[in-house]
């Protein structure tokens, strides 16, 4: 009986201590990669909510969802009583950000980018917003070292095409200046589609002309994506070298395109998948 009493006493005495350091801290994380960084920094106990795009680590999905990052509602965000909002570039809308400012809640936007330095900068900026710059430096250096150590260079890089979706037979592919373009380069490939920026539908002839040797797609929840056989049967895709070797890589979207702490893993996985069979 006495032991039990002491155990309870200990528990009640210790519990407040562990949460006291940031007892006043209530952070909302907006953007999948931002949430990943906060978890990687070990600061997740300060989070009170996240946005719809924050799905990794899976435990993050237990947090309340304040909506899609570009369509946040002011009262929804205020309802979780936050003291700080850390958001990916492009979060909003501006009306919501202004209301949050008038409620004197800091809204910190983290710049985005799709190369090695961008990953470090992102981690560093999030850590500074959290007030743990040393942790940030350590994590950024660690991730950067992993990226530097990647042995993804090949003399004859494969032509890779990232396909966002195939809807009604239309191929939506990634051009330059996207996260997909960035990760293909980090993985030691070369983007087969360079005629435009962003994600655009390609004509069948443009697909043939791009002549990708490998096709990369995302794995999605509740898979709406096209089946392998259907993809190879697509008249334009069928003409590509990728179809001849049936080279298709499917990777989780947030891992592949997040540009966060898991980017080295993404680059390595993609590299192995592209060149593995050779």
């Amino acid at each position, binding site marked *: 009986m006495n032991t039990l009493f002491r155990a309870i006493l200990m528990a009640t005495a210790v519990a407040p201590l562990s949460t006291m350091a940031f007892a006043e801290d209530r952070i909302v994380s907006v953007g999948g990669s931002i949430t990943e960084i906060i978890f990687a920094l070990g600061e997740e106990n300060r989070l009170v909510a996240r946005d719809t795009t924050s799905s990794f680590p899976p435990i993050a999905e237990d947090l309340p969802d304040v*909506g899609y990052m570009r369509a946040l509602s002011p009262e*929804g965000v205020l309802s979780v009583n936050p003291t700080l909002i850390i958001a990916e570039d492009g979060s909003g*809308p501006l*009306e919501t950000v202004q209301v949050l400012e008038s409620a004197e809640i800091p809204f910190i936007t983290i710049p985005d980018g799709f190369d090695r330095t961008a990953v470090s900068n992102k981690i560093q900026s999030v850590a500074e917003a959290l007030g743990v710059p040393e942790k940030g430096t350590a994590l950024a250096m660690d991730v950067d070292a992993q990226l530097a150590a990647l042995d993804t260079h090949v003399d004859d890089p494969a032509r890779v095409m990232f396909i966002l979706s195939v809807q009604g037979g239309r191929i939506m592919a990634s051009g330059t200046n996207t996260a997909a373009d960035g990760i293909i380069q980090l993985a030691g490939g070369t983007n087969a589609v360079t005629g435009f920026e962003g994600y655009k*539908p390609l004509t069948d002839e443009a697909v043939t002309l791009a002549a990708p040797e490998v096709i990369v797609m995302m794995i999605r929840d509740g898979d709406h994506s096209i089946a392998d056989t259907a993809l190879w049967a697509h008249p334009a895709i069928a003409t590509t070298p990728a179809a001849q070797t049936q080279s298709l890589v499917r990777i989780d979207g947030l891992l592949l395109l997040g540009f966060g702490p898991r980017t080295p893993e993404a680059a390595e996985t993609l590299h192995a998948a592209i060149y593995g069979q050779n």
Partner: protein
Amino acid sequence: MAILDAGIRLSPPQAGDRGPQALVVLILCAALLLMMIIASLTVGASGTSLLQALFTWASGEQIGLREKVILFDIRAPRTLLGALVGASLAVSGAVMQGLFRNPLADPGLVGVSAGAGLGAILAIVLGGLLPAGIAAVAGMYTIPIAAFLGGWASTLLLYRIATRKGRTSVAVMLLAGIALGALTGAIAGVLVYIADDNQLRDLTFWGLGSLAGATWTKLLVAGPLMILALSTMPFLARGLDALTLGEATAWHLGIPVQRMKNIAILTVACATGASVAVSGGIGFVGIVVPHLLRLTIGPSHKFLLPISALLGAAFLLAADMVSRVIVAPSELPIGIITATIGGPFFLFVLLRSRGVLDI
């Protein structure tokens, strides 16, 4: 169909007059709107309540900044804007159905929705190309401003096309509206094609409508336009009643038909343009509300227009409350909710009028 026998009612009160009944409905709808306004200030994702804040204030304590922002900067403008948008859309719908003598008419027929949509898409996709000076002044209001101008431009164009020798043909307007809709759809398609990923997401959300972006600035700019448009109701009511007999008969009854058409079209363009500009695409309010009322109070516009305004406002506030609490702390676009109710209702109206219209 109730609309078609409206002409009988131009004579003084007689057996079957639904005036007293309408008066009761008017009072009920006013009470309902008042309740919705209070509820809208009280309900939300956060636990903040109007009554609680008033109580705190009355007991001499300071209201917290968070409570103040939620009540004054978020819910108050949102509630007022929601009421005005709901009233505008419902009255515009009722006026259009009267003017076109077609139970399925809605404000989209004068081209305002298509034009406003194109304006919004232009602002979302090409907003970045604006000269820095203009962009700095318009700022986050670029989309509403562009939507309003787009709505007006397309209505004026349609009006010019349909007006010949000082007479506006509603039939020409209807047909030209379809052509213009196809054209704006094509231009919008080009813009959607060149839009990037984020812009596409913005377009989708804009199309589903939301009152979440309500601010005092938007209210102060769009509010007077909507109130001005709603204030033409008394003039329109008599004219629309007479118009149910046909344009020639209405003219012989002493109704200035052309002037009335001008006012009706400009009123609808103004009210709908301002509504769409501040809240995006909210559908079906203009169909659901007037028809629901015609079923109970009859087709006389004297009552139909003001009660449509009251019920439209109450309906949109109710839909908005659902939109903000159903997936809290996130928010479901309000257009989804109005269409979920409106779609089946539209079908009901269609099936009900099938016999009369012989379609």
